[in-house]
């Protein structure tokens, strides 16, 4: 029976690959592939769940295949199936089917019809990869892909400014969640000294066995998981990205931010519950986050004057309650709550345009002018009202406390004269490689500091690239060099076999070459690829846009390149006592992706800079 689990991931991937080959204008086959994929998925899943229930409904687990194995490390794709999987995947299938059916007509003749359905299919695959995942690695593959799908669907209208700006905003905050997950993964590796699976976590007493002596580590894991879940589910203080993500076609907003994507945080908590169920501190934190979100999001929802943002915040409030339910161990209730909320918000978003005529009609017959407006508000009422309008400053604080300090740091680096900086970096890199080559001859003391030094330099380079406003090419190369420093840093950790480094670098090298070629190509057009503004080259260079996008994703280590495996590998080689290295490396990976997607967005997305055809206003 377990053997079947892989079908549920393979099917959407197959659909995606098939749909890649259909020409852009062929709406019918494109939509049929999507409908067929999702429909078949739902039928198979329903059959599977029935069979599974008849057989007693015990959790299933299968190590599907091992991607990479070494004595100390194993990267396996592992699938798991229990009632949480059953509910999440079935609800997901039903909603996806409805939305695909809806979109088939809704998206008719939309520029980007194919892009939309391709995206939906990757999303579908990513979603099930998460839901069916049996270990953190598999979970993480889906999680990363989901983030990229969100980026692409929020920025679906890529010739306008706001969708692109908001897509970047959302992926940036998502990236924070990604990094939390990587750190959790790394911590788990050191707690359990192996790559654990979710079925192991669920074994009675398994986690308890490790608790003594690992209390702080497990607390940290819990916090990381909570932050990751809060980010993905738009919980306090990360809520403000959700309404801003409603930039795509209504049907994609419905499936992403109304229903499936935003509930992934709840899923993460449900899935990892055994890990933190005995840590009261974490439970309290989950409850507090949930409760604060429920209150704040409701307060914001109450004053929203637009339909979609109102639905977004009221959905978040319900998800806050689900967090509490999970922490209290009321998992069946949480699952029912999830299903109901997902269906309701999907429906509300899909029909959101009809709210205008419905409410206007209603007002026509039931509204008495001048009643509500005259009511005097109390000072507290006014304050709540104003806070709601400002969304409790969440967006502002995020910018101020999350991104601004790093940008400032990056800007300071700008002051170093370019010549000195380049020479310095090159010398240090060469020195590093030389030192690495004669590692045996160096004193042990020096070697312990090397990882920190190089990770630090890598991190600084990434931040420098992050703050870069000039050439996109420079930023891109900075990132590539930073990747080399990160590799170097970890290579100093004795036990890294050279071929693992090669795995990592091979991905980087290919991505670097194609990326540089692509960006150079664009540079030759007008000799202007500054990162100071959006250029919108996708309008005239759609093919190069794809090349550079794939290069950027590969460089960032998305789960279709060897680099992804490399990141995972490298992280496991960071020792438990190398906190500084973990921090530097995490920050680096956090900003590498943001930086690369920023390069892609600035050069290819947004308003096209050449006004020889109709271009949207910036504010539209």
């Amino acid at each position, binding site marked *: 029976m377990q053997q079947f689990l892989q079908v549920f991931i393979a099917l959407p991937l197959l659909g995606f690959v098939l749909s890649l080959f259909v020409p852009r204008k062929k709406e019918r086959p494109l939509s049929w592939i999507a409908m067929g994929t999702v429909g078949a998925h739902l039928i198979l899943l329903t059959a599977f769940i029935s069979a599974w229930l008849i057989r007693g409904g015990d959790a299933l687990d299968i190590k599907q295949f091992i991607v990479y194995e070494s004595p100390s490390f194993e990267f396996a794709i592992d699938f798991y199936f229990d009632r949480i999987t059953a509910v999440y995947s079935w609800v997901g299938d039903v909603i996806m089917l409805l939305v695909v059916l809806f979109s088939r007509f809704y998206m008719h003749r939309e520029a980007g019809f194919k892009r939309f359905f391709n995206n939906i299919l990757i999303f579908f695959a990513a979603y099930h990869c998460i839901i069916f995942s049996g270990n953190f690695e598999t979970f993480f593959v889906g999680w990363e892909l989901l983030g990229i799908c969100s980026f692409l669907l929020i920025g679906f209208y890529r010739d306008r400014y706001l969708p692109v700006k908001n897509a970047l905003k959302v992926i940036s905050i998502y990236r924070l969640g990604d990094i939390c997950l990587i750190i959790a993964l790394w911590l788990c590796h050191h707690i359990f000294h192996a790559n654990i699976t979710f079925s192991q976590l669920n074994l009675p007493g398994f986690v308890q066995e490790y608790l003594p002596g690992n209390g702080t580590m497990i607390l940290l894991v819990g916090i990381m998981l909570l932050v990751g879940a809060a980010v993905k589910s738009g919980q306090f203080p990360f809520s403000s990205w959700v309404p801003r993500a409603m930039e795509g076609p209504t049907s994609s907003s419905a499936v992403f931010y109304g229903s499936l994507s935003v509930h992934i945080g709840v899923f993460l908590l449900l899935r990892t519950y055994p890990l933190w169920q005995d840590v009261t501190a974490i439970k309290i934190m989950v409850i507090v986050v949930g409760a604060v979100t429920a209150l704040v999001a409701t307060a914001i929802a109450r004053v929203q004057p637009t339909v979609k943002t109102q639905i977004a915040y*009221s959905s978040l409030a319900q998800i806050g309650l689900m967090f509490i339910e999970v922490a209290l161990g009321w998992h069946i209730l949480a699952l029912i709550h999830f299903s109901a909320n997902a269906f309701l918000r999907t429906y509300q978003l899909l029909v959101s345009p009809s709210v205008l005529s419905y409410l206007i009609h209603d007002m026509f017959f039931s509204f008495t002018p001048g009643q509500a407006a005259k009511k005097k508000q109390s*000072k507290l009422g006014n304050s709540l009202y104003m806070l709601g*309008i400002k969304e409790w400053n969440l967006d502002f604080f995020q910018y101020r406390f999350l991104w601004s300090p790093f940008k400032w740091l990056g800007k300071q680096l700008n002051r170093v004269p370019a010549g000195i900086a380049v020479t310095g970096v090159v010398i240090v890199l060469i020195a590093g490689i030389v030192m690495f080559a004669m590692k045996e001859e160096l004193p042990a003391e020096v070697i312990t500091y090397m990882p920190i030094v190089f990770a630090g330099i890598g991190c600084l380079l990434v931040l420098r690239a992050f703050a870069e406003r000039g050439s996109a090419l420079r930023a891109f190369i900075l990132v590539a060099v930073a990747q080399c420093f990160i590799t170097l840093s970890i290579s100093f950790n004795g036990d890294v076999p050279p071929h693992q480094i090669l795995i990592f670098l091979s991905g980087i090298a290919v991505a670097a070459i194609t990326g540089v070629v692509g960006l150079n190509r664009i540079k030759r057009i007008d000799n202007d690829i500054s990162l100071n503004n959006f250029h919108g080259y996708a309008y005239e260079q759609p093919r190069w846009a794809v090349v550079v996008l794939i290069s950027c994703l590969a460089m960032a280590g998305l789960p279709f390149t060897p680099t992804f495996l490399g990141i995972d590998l490298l992280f496991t080689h960071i020792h438990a006592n190398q906190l500084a290295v973990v921090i530097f490396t995490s920050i680096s990976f956090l900003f590498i992706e943001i930086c690369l997607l920023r390069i892609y967005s600035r050069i290819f997305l947004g308003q096209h800079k050449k006004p020889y055809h109709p271009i949207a206003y910036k504010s*539209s």
Partner: protein
Amino acid sequence: MSTQNNKVDTTVHSARSKVYHSDGKAVADVPHILHELRHYLPSQTPIKDFIHHNSLHAYQHMKFYEAIFKASKIFGFQATLQLTEFRELYAIGRIKNEVLEHVIEGRKGKGGVNLDTWRDRLLRKSYDVNNTPRIGQLRAEWKNQYQVDLDNLVQPLLFRIVCSYLDQGISLHKVSSHDDGFLASIKELEQNSFTSFFKTKRAKELLLSDNLDCRKLLQIVVGQEEYFEQYLFDQQFTHQGWSGIVAAVEDSPHTLMDSRKISLMDFVMLELLLEIDALDHSLGKDWEPLGDRVEAPPVDLFAHVDTTELQEVFILWQDAFEWSYYDEVLSGMQQLKTRSIETIGEGKSTSPNLSFQAIFCIDERECSIRRHVEAVDRNCETFGSPGFFGVEFYFQPENGKFYEKLCPAPVTPKYLIKEEPVSHKRGHELLYTPKTHTLLEGTLGTLSLGFMAAIRLFQTMFRPRMSPAISNAFSHMNKKAPLVIENRDVNHRENDLQVGFTVPEMAARVEGLLRGIGMVKDFAPLVYVMAHGSSSANNPHHSAHDCGACSGRPGSVNARVFAHMANHREVRNILKEKGLAIPESTWFVGAMHDTAADQMDFYDADILDDEKKQAHQVNLVAFEEALDRNATERSRRFASINTKRDLKKVRKDILDRSVSMFEPRPELGHGTNTLCIVGNRDITKGLFLDRRAFLNSYDYRTDPDGSVLTGVMRPIGLVCGGINLEYYFSRVDNHKLGAGTKLPHNIMGLFGVANSSDGDLRPGLPVQMIEVHDPVRLLIVVEHQPEIVLKSIQSTPEIYEWYLNEWVHLIALHPGTNKFHYFKNGEFTIYDPITPEVPAADDILKLVTDAKEMETNYIVDATVENLPVHLVNES
């Protein structure tokens, strides 16, 4: 003191003109600047009443081409199709070579060299087509000089505050609105709150200070007074949608049901305050005003725009594009005339045995249903008249808390028509309850309604049907409730409106309409007064599909009211005295056609006598068949429907489509409208015009001196021309002048749509409505002598402007000579069509069902879907 206040004339604007000098110091007149500025803002009122208008109404005092190029230079939008698009249209033959040559010769003079030069410029010469606008250049200096993106810092909060203030019924917690308006309300909030919209102190102090005025704020932000005008234009046109709605609500607060007091001045002041706040916050307190940092003033926005060769190329292309179609139409009309002379003989009047007559709206969507009705029942006769049928009033349905205006937008009625109470239950939709947005009720609501939503979603997908959430044209009036139409006591008034019409008032209206359309004798036993409306689901723009002559609402009440008046015994007596005798055997029946669902409903048919009832039953069958055929004709443009299926099945598909939540195109609205024909039906009957013509019945024979014609022509420019130009501009630049694609739209406060949460309001038409439209101006053909036509359009300068400045084309069809006279520069010249012959078709249904669907909505693909004019062979 030597103050010299320059009054600005409407034609020449200059930044400097709003500055007067006081003791040698420049002083800007801010209210005056805002007064000028608002002309250029989109004038769309809340979207529940969508009224089509010329998007560039502010330039109507200029010639069309001069205006669009000037506007384009100032605001940076595309004013015609793109050069490459024109060239491709030529390559596929949509712009005809012979017409192009004719157009070049017409504008550039005859002569081989000229023709070749211009032809080469049009077809091959490469031009720099980049159009960098003048607007925004001063304000761009914030980014250049201070590295501050003010729009990003200010707009999201500004939009949210103003949207919340104007919000009609989405948010659950409303701000208390102060009697003194917007800024006073914000001030009150700021005074009585623990928090603030501002991050810094100065802006808040300024707001709370007693002597706050706009100039003071501008002095802080801009400094130099001579820059004020440009700055305000730059600032307001970064979000013209929001500024537009503020100005529109300021002008008519009651356009919102929950009315709000707001002024553009208040809005601008809040924006300036937020700018000061953002600047203080990011630059600290010591920053110089923008004007002090700018070295040279940017180009004056309204400075003269030089004519360029490229503009001339565009003019020639646009003319050629338009005339390639017009010429075909005119040639078809001429052929039709020749044929009818040959076959029937001239001067033969209508058939003596009329089965029925039907008066439709002039709307071009009714062009095809009229053709089908006539094809199904050859003994009937159809007419066209603006769909409010000459009766202007407010309507109050039972329990309605408001009045609805049912007449063209510029008219202000003095009458009220009320529904008499019959207990009528209004439907509700449980899933639309706002309770799901609260915490406790929301949780219970979510848990209980969530699964119901899943079931409802399946229903929506697989069995779409009418529900209270769908705007239903037929529910606009309860057909079972009697209407109070007759006023027996002139003191019977409500809110300064007379309830109902007195008999003489009725008679005047009935006479006006009947004389206008030339229906003065040969009445059929049944005369249908056919209004129209449109049902659609999930469509914020639904009122753009309703009747434009009824202020964007269904015209059912008007049809019913008119029929009642025309059936009134005393009214008929008065009419008889005036020489308009309606025989007793004639009965008027009000009805409505749903242009999206292709359904009809008939009002007060139960009071017909038995004989008429029978006749009505027979006619119903004809109407049903015509609707089947009409649905099939329409379905050719809908990818979701297989046009080749059985007529009844196609009709069912059309009906389903009108109630489908997933369908962004329930119908295509006025897309493709291009013609307006004012004259007898015989000049178009027998021509296939593909639903592109407004058809206004008018009989020159009953109006030799043109006194009726003046009345007929009065609304044509404003209504038909307004629709046409809105489609034109939304088509040529859907990003800047249209609403973009509908799919990401978010409903803002129940008064407009915007993309996502932080976007500007999007006035204009969405891409789903304009993609079938060929952007050509309206050609109005009037059947009368040129002199009379000229007189009729010169009744007021506002009407004459439309024609003289070429915002629409006008041709007089001389009934005596059958020659076309084209109006240009104030005079008529004869135009002979170039197209030798238009194709003929035996079966229109076959023609339309065989037609190909467009591959994409790119103009060059899309235009192919618009079929050429055909002559219909009579079998």
